């Protein structure tokens, strides 16, 4: 190198200086290489971390539809009026400088006053007392910002013609935590406000409408229990990429019902947005990195018309505070056509009266159709009867019921020394009459012989009482059925007697009864109850296929002879059509001949005190080729009977079914 050649000649000290210079530049070069080449990626990631904020964008939630495609749950847009804070930076600064100079003036006055008092100018250490601490400056900033935003909102209020309240605390919190996001000043604008805003305020300082999606249920409380509800939950859900976002846009999580069971399908896939942020935390620009993918729609097996009829009927006959349930099922495949639970539950959770929700008796949050166990009472007698018929019972064999000495109008039977009362009058009974009049004595006596209890329990197990049906709605209880082992250990005749009349260690849900009666109606096939028919992709034009859930999944067969079934069917027909039948109130007409069974079960508390009754009416129709099963339950403390209380509700439902079939010109309500 030219310089070094010349320096080599004679000048040692200059040479040393040159070497030191070269070494110094070399150190800088190595340092720069280390920082800019070797560590470049690390610093770039630091840059990204401080400059970018990621936002999780939840997708549009899928809808819930009934079997004919009518909307049960959907999303409504909600418009919020939001302020973009980066547009307010300069007004914030100006307001701050005004406040600051005012504070400065005060400070100077204080110093002057102090100096006047002392008679001399203050020393440096003393001046420190008057210095404005950082907290005060921060306070000034806060006041400045609140002033500017408050003024802006006042202006907006004037333009919109309505008050726009300013919550300073809320705003300060938003400013501290979510500066890069727009600040929602006014939520849920109605159409008029939106129109006024667009008219008078578009393209002006920093305010705009932001869209939020809110779950809505257009049918009020109809099917409320089955639909369930969603709660606000902004976090990343299970099954998503487990990464942390800086901000989360409002999102929901289904808690119970179909909203919960199919939440993963309905919520789609969230999108992602990234915001470039400057050193003060204000948003500079926004990019959408991934569009959210809307969720799938869920089509239920429910029929909205039948659901409405069932709910209205229960409410009309028993009032809004009635504790009861109705299940309507298609006997040929287990599709649930209607599922009602009363008192009603509003899927918009916040609109449920909190006092009612915590009421120990009403408990509207419980889906009584699937989530509570009830003593079945007389409606269980069909199981007892079938077991007896299969064991060889002669349905025509007469049995005499003795009158109750204390109550000669009604019969009784002695089990050991225990007297079991009967609601039916004393007299001669055959199978049909026993069903029609729901004679306790008759059914106890056919259940008592050796080995019958085993047969009864085995048959009940085939109906899958005491077991859950794997419902996706998180609202299920299995009920109670004694096991064979149980009936072999310390099991008395009295217990058998109780079981024969549907009391004792026996509890069912209305859905289980619907499945059981469907099995009886369709010739012996126990189906898995089906709540969801198929899943539809959100965009009909997309290539995605419709995914159907299997129809008519067989769970079991009860394996009774068709002769037994026929006898039972006839007996149950008599329940509604014969003079003595207790279920006459259900009758609709010759086009829809109903086979039914009424029931009244006693409800006892832990000290075996009577506290109420479960009134039941279980049925299927039409008699010739059964298609529908209807189960009605009403809990009450007062007097009554299944025939008086529940049968009229079933009547309304069957009438509606009939009208629907007629209107559909013979189109039968069934999915293929």
């Amino acid at each position: 190198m030219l310089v070094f050649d010349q320096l080599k000649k004679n000048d040692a000290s200059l040479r040393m200086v040159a070497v030191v210079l070269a070494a110094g530049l070399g150190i800088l070069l190595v340092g720069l290489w280390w920082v800019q080449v070797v560590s470049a990626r690390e610093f770039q990631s630091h840059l990204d971390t401080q400059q970018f904020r990621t936002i999780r964008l939840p997708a549009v939630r899928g809808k819930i539809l009934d079997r004919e495609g009518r909307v049960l749950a959907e999303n409504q847009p909600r418009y919020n009026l939001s302020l973009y804070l980066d547009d307010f930076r300069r007004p914030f600064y100006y307001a701050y400088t005004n406040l600051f100079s005012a504070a400065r003036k005060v400070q100077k006055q204080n110093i002057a006053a102090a100096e006047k008092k002392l008679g001399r100018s203050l020393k440096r250490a003393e001046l420190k007392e008057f210095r404005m601490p950082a907290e005060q400056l921060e306070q000034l900033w806060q006041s400045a910002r609140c002033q500017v935003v408050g003024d802006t909102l006042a202006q907006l209020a004037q333009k919109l013609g309505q008050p726009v309240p300013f919550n300073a605390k809320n705003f300060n919190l938003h400013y501290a935590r979510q500066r890069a996001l727009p600040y929602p000043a006014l939520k849920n604008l109605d159409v008029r406000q939106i129109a006024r805003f667009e008219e008078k305020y578009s393209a002006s300082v920093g305010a705009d409408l932001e869209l939020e999606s809110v779950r809505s249920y257009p049918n009020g409380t109809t099917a409320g229990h089955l639909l369930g509800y969603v709660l606000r939950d902004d976090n990343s859900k299970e099954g998503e990429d487990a990464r942390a976002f800086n901000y989360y846009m409002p999102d929901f999580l289904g808690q119970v019902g179909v909203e919960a069971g199919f939440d993963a399908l309905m919520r789609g896939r969230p999108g992602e947005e990234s915001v470039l942020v400057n050193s003060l935390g204000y948003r500079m620009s926004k990019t959408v990195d991934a569009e959210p993918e809307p969720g799938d729609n869920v089509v239920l097996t429910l029929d909205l018309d039948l659901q409405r009829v069932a709910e209205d009927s229960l409410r009309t006959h028993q009032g809004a505070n009635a504790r009861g349930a109705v299940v309507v099922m298609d006997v040929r495949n287990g599709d649930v056509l209607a599922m009602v639970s009363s008192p009603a539950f509003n899927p918009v959770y916040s609109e449920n009266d909190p006092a009612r929700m915590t009421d120990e008796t009403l408990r509207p949050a419980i889906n009584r159709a699937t989530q509570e166990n009830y003593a079945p009472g007389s409606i269980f007698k069909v199981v007892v009867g079938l077991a007896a018929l299969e064991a060889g019972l002669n349905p025509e064999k007469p049995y005499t019921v003795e009158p109750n000495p204390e109550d000669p109008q009604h019969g009784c039977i002695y089990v050991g020394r225990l007297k079991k009362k009967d609601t039916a009058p004393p007299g001669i009974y055959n199978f049909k009459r026993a069903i029609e009049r729901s004679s306790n004595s008759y059914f106890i006596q056919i259940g008592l012989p050796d080995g019958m209890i085993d047969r009864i329990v085995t048959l009940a197990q085939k109906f899958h009482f005491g077991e859950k049906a794997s419902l996706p709605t998180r609202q299920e209880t299995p009920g109670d059925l004694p096991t064979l082992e149980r009936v072999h250990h310390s099991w008395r005749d009295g217990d058998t007697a109780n079981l024969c009349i549907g009391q004792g260690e026996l509890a069912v849900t209305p859905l289980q009864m619907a499945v059981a009666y469907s099995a009886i109606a369709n010739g012996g096939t126990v189906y898995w109850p089906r709540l969801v028919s198929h899943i539809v992709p959100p965009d009909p034009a997309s290539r995605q296929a419709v995914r159907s859930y299997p129809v008519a999944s067989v769970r079991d067969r009860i394996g009774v002879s068709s002769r037994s079934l026929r006898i039972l069917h006839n007996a149950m027909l008599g329940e509604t059509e014969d003079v003595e039948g207790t279920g006459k109130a259900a009758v609709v007409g010759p086009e829809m001949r109903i086979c039914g069974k009424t029931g009244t079960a006693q409800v006892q508390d832990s000290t075996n005190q009577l506290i109420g009754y479960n009134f039941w009416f279980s049925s299927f129709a039409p008699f010739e080729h059964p298609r529908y099963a209807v189960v009605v339950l009403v809990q009450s403390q007062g007097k009554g009977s299944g025939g008086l209380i529940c049968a009229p509700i079933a009547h309304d439902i069957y009438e509606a079914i009939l009208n629907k079939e007629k209107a559909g010109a013979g189109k039968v309500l069934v999915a293929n």
Partner: protein
Amino acid sequence: MFEASTIPKESFDRLQIAALVGLMFIGTAFVFSATMANDSAATLMWYQQSWVRQIVYYALGAGVAAALCVADYHTLARWSYIVYWAMILCLVAVLIPHIGSMRFGARRWIDLVVFQFQPSEFAKLAYILAGANFLSRPPEELKRAKVFWQSMGLMMLPFVLILKEPDLGSALVLLPTGLVMMLVAGTPRRYLLRLVGIVGLLAMLFVADVLFAPVQWQIPMESYQRNRLMVYFGRNYTDFAPSNATPAELQRLRQRQLDDAYNVRQALISVGSGGLFGKGWRQGTQNALGYLPRAVAHNDFIFSVIAEEEGFVGSVIVLTLYAVVLFTGLRIAGQTRDRLGKLVAVGAVTLLFSHVFINIGMNIRIMPVTGVPLPLLSYGGSSVLCSMIAVGLMQNIHIHRKGY
């Protein structure tokens, strides 16, 4: 006899001039990028915009430097002591409350309405001239202790005055300059070694005191200077908190530590994220989004802006240009006939090198933050003027090297 006009004059050292022009070009471009990033800058009149002012400073500096080259440097050296004492007076004046204007906690400038006059910059140049003049006596004289201490005094006087302002960075730059000049002049090794030893010891004691000593024993220093040193050495502010500090106070100390380390952290991120080729002129986001504070982006941390936007390649180009200026300066020093010229050239080279090393070192965190501008690239009239004058002096020596 011989007239001045027959003295053969060499032309300028073209290589150094070329490198200088390169640096001026880069300086203009990146002051533009650093200052025109926000929208409010665009509303300024053209004559208020920083990059235009920088060009004016360059022109002014070139003019002054050219004027200085007309006279032989020996003539200039005759005025050196007068200029030196004048600068000392200015340094004293700047410390007086109503003459020197206080900005950012330091009194460094005299407000002359048209521009801010920073005496410390000019004092460094004056010292080079005066010191070179003093040291250019015959080497035998330098062996005397009295002469040695006098030359030390010549250096320490402006050093102490500049330190008082307080301007640690500028004061520090005087030390290597003086030392190198004394070395090249031929001061005996033993003096210099002893000096370096003592200074080294003092520096270590100073650092130890700042970092480890309890409160009663600490040397009085501006708090922000102490903080910068602590941040550089990785000490936590909370180590110096009184024992009864509440958690809230400790949290506040930690927050302040983060704030004080902020500039360096942002500078590092700027430099590092530039990568190999940088992001492109005016495409740097650190400056545009305000992460690198506007107040320092165009002067002390201008190198970060260059590094982010032009990457490693750009950094190497800048270093190369400086290397050319410095080594041609050394060549000039080697080619002179007399000691005065050699000493002035070496002094100017060391001065510029110290600035470059400390400033770029500050940007990549191998030196603590000391507020030293980058010659010719940082925005600022005094800095540009003095850098140009330093180069002008070197050119002067080159032009007049054969004359006598």
